[in-house]
């Protein structure tokens, strides 16, 4: 009989016309057809059936009502006790104060007629913490333990990510003219594949430390330690220290886990300069200025084991990278906020091997990466539940010094940026556009025909995506790329789901 109710929603799109979209029509019309198809047998139901159902419903409602009443009575009783305690406390303090006032008066009267009592002490009224005194010792009524993920276990969160990719060119043979790429700097493989499945543990270690561990399982069943760090909690003067393995604080996207990105793949400039995302072992120090607007300075010293560093780390004794960054931001008004950043990363590589056009390429030297990033978010009256807009752009420049396949690199500077916008046009639905561009410097005849030969090309990519969230924890995305970053143009269509379950600590700005 429930199918009969499908006739009502016909009017929904009209009622909600202001942001009706094709998707909603689809959602509504499919079940509608289904409902109509099923309505006929339902109509044949006898009157008896309906009556018995009505009776059952009546009973259920009564049961529900009485259960609710009982709950309410119980709750009201507890409230009453709480109020009585409050009233008692109030009376007690009033009495105490009256007594105090009386004492003061008599004291004043008894003493010689000198000017008022020492002005340095607190105003004559109640002695400090007089109000709470009677209730002060009693614990808070009933509230239970403080909000915590689960007793003393760390908060455990799981992220699952799956993709289907259709592409004209084989992602396995991906290359970007002018760039030696890190191992992971490729589009996802064709067909069905899993992205990284992550398991995250985090908890406060004690009053001074916070610990975080993220294990990533990739589609080839390989386990990687993505993040494993400890972090200080509340050092004085706004300092935070982090040690272990973590994603560097440079740029905007770099620090965020890939599953929170708004597109299914990394921007080209991240792919070319940072091997998708730069994380390494080391120490990070941040300092947050005590200002009303957000101003943060940070620096890192790292092992230098990950692309664009890498290779033999005995050359730099395990300290092969460092970075520095500044972030600033604030609210423009209630609706809009922004964050901007400036970063520098220096990474040393010693005989770093990357997949080349013919055998492995070997690079020894230093990569200097400069970055500038900006994010802007807007939501009507700052309410992100209905609609919001997120604009972001990052620009990076990278200079390589040293030798590439035994040839000394000339003075060079590669430049890349992306700009993207994502708009949530109704709850749970968003679309986004992204433009990517990267260009390597031309390095002269010595490098013609090598990986670093840019073929005189500027690499571009145009992306569009639509995603639907089942809730804060589940998301389905469709993305299209027109990719001109390969020697030949490519069309890519990516379907992706990302879910997270278990405990979930929220997202950074």
């Amino acid at each position, binding site marked *: 009989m429930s199918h009969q*109710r499908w*006739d*009502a*929603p016909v*009017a*929904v799109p009209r*009622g*909600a016309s202001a942001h009706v979209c094709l998707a909603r029509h689809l*959602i509504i019309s499919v*079940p*509608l057809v289904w409902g109509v198809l099923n309505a006929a047998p339902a109509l044949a139901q006898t009157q008896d059936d309906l009556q018995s159902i009505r009776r059952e419903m009546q009973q259920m409602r009564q049961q529900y009502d009485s259960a609710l009443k009982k*709950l309410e009575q119980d*709750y009201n009783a507890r409230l009453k006790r*709480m109020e009585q305690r409050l009233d008692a406390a109030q009376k007690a303090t009033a009495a105490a104060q009256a007594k105090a006032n009386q004492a003061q008066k008599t004291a004043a009267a008894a003493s010689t007629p000198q000017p008022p009592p020492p002005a340095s002490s*607190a*105003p004559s*009224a*109640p002695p*400090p*913490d007089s*109000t*709470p005194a009677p209730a*002060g010792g009693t614990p808070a*009524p009933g*509230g*239970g333990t*403080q*909000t915590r993920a689960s007793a003393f276990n760390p908060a455990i969160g799981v992220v699952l990510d799956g993709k289907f990719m259709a592409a004209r060119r084989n992602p396995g043979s991906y290359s970007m003219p002018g760039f030696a790429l890190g191992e992971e700097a490729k589009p996802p493989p064709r067909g069905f594949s899993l992205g990284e499945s992550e398991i995250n543990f985090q908890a406060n270690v004690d*009053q001074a430390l916070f610990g975080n561990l993220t294990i990533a399982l990739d589609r080839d069943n390989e386990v990687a330690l993505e993040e494993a760090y400890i*972090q200080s*909690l*509340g050092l*004085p003067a706004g*300092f935070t220290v982090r040690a272990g393995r973590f994603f560097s604080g440079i740029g905007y996207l770099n620090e965020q886990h890939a599953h929170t990105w708004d597109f299914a793949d990394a921007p080209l400039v991240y792919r070319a300069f940072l091997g998708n995302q730069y994380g390494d072992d080391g120490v990070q120090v941040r300092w*947050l*200025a*005590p*200002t*009303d607007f*957000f*101003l943060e300075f940070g620096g890192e010293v790292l092992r230098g084991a990950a692309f664009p560093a890498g290779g033999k780390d005995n050359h730099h004794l395990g300290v092969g990278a460092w970075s520095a960054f500044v*972030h*600033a931001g*604030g*609210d423009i008004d209630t609706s809009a906020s*922004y964050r901007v950043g*400036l970063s520098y990363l220096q990474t040393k590589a010693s005989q770093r091997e990357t997949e080349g056009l013919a055998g492995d390429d070997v690079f020894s030297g230093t990569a200097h990466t400069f970055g500038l990033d900006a994010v802007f*978010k807007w939501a009507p*009256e*700052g*309410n*992100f*539940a209905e609609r919001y807009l997120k604009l972001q752009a990052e620009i990076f420049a990278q200079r390589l010094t040293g030798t590439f396949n035994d040839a000394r690199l000339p003075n060079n500077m590669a430049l890349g940026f992306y700009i993207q916008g994502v708009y949530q046009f109704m*709850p749970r639905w968003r679309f986004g556009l992204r433009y990517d561009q990267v260009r390597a410097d031309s390095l002269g005849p010595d490098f013609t025909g090598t990986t670093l030969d840019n073929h005189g090309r500027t690499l571009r990519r145009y992306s569009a995506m639509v995603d639907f969230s089942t*809730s804060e924890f589940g998301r389905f995305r469709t993305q299209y790329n027109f990719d001109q970053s390969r020697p030949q143009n490519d069309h890519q269509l990516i379907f992706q789901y990302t879910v997270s*379950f278990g405990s979930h600590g*929220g*997202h*950074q*700005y």
Partner: protein
Amino acid sequence: MRFTTIGPAAIAAALALVVAGTSPAAALDVFACEPEWGALAQELGGSDVSVYTATTARQDPHQVQARPALIARMRRADLVVCTGAELEVGWLPILLRQASNAKVQAGAPGYFEATQQVPLMDKPQRLDRAQGDIHAAGNPHIQNDPRLVRAVAAALARRMQEVDPAHAAGYAQRARAFDDRMAQAIPRWQTTAASLRGTRAVTYHKGWVYLFTWLGISEVGTIEAKPGVPPSSAWLAQLLDDIPKRNAQSVIYAAYQDPKAANFVAQKAGIPAVMLPFTVGGTDEAKDLFSFYDDTIRRLLAGLKGVAR
């Protein structure tokens, strides 16, 4: 925008500000997560506090961004006053971690959760995300029952005295004054709202359980299929079917919620849709914690007479 502040000038400016920032602050710096606690802290703190409220009544408190401005404010706070019960779970832990302020970390005297001070309702029997955006500790929307706010006020005043003993007398005095006003106002509100007792309402979100318990209103349905889950057309159809059976007299939604769904249901069912402030600042009339309840009851009564909004 302040794009020009980055760079060397910013470093110099920051250092100057640090020096300025280390001088003793005159007032207790209070960071309130929601407007009701901002208003309460102001009532209790008077001129001894400087209150920053992180969200407005027009924002869904479940969905707030961990904005840079909030991190900066949290860094300077002496006392953080939030709802708790996981209402702010999507953004508060990030702010606390990034602000790196020992005074206000969870468990420190400078960290205050209002829901810790009162008994909570709607504690879920089963913790499962399939039930929607539920809160393990219970329903966090306690600010709609002034009796609970009164209890929170007493606890908050104690906490303010603990964090700022130099002004303890002032907090005590204002706490007593606030409690007196509340003790007088609560029976008055109850008398005014007497005709609401026994009425039935459909709500948008399960955000009114405390208000309804206080005033004796029954919730007979919600527009959201599950907490935080927008309604499907099937759910709305079912709801519209049920409204006459359950004899609902109004549809109630909060100032921060999209009125479209509530108006649609109300119109279809032929009952008024009533927008309530939900917190201080939700309507022009709800200026402080007293006018907030005045306005809530006034709107409910107007709705009952069919004079919607």
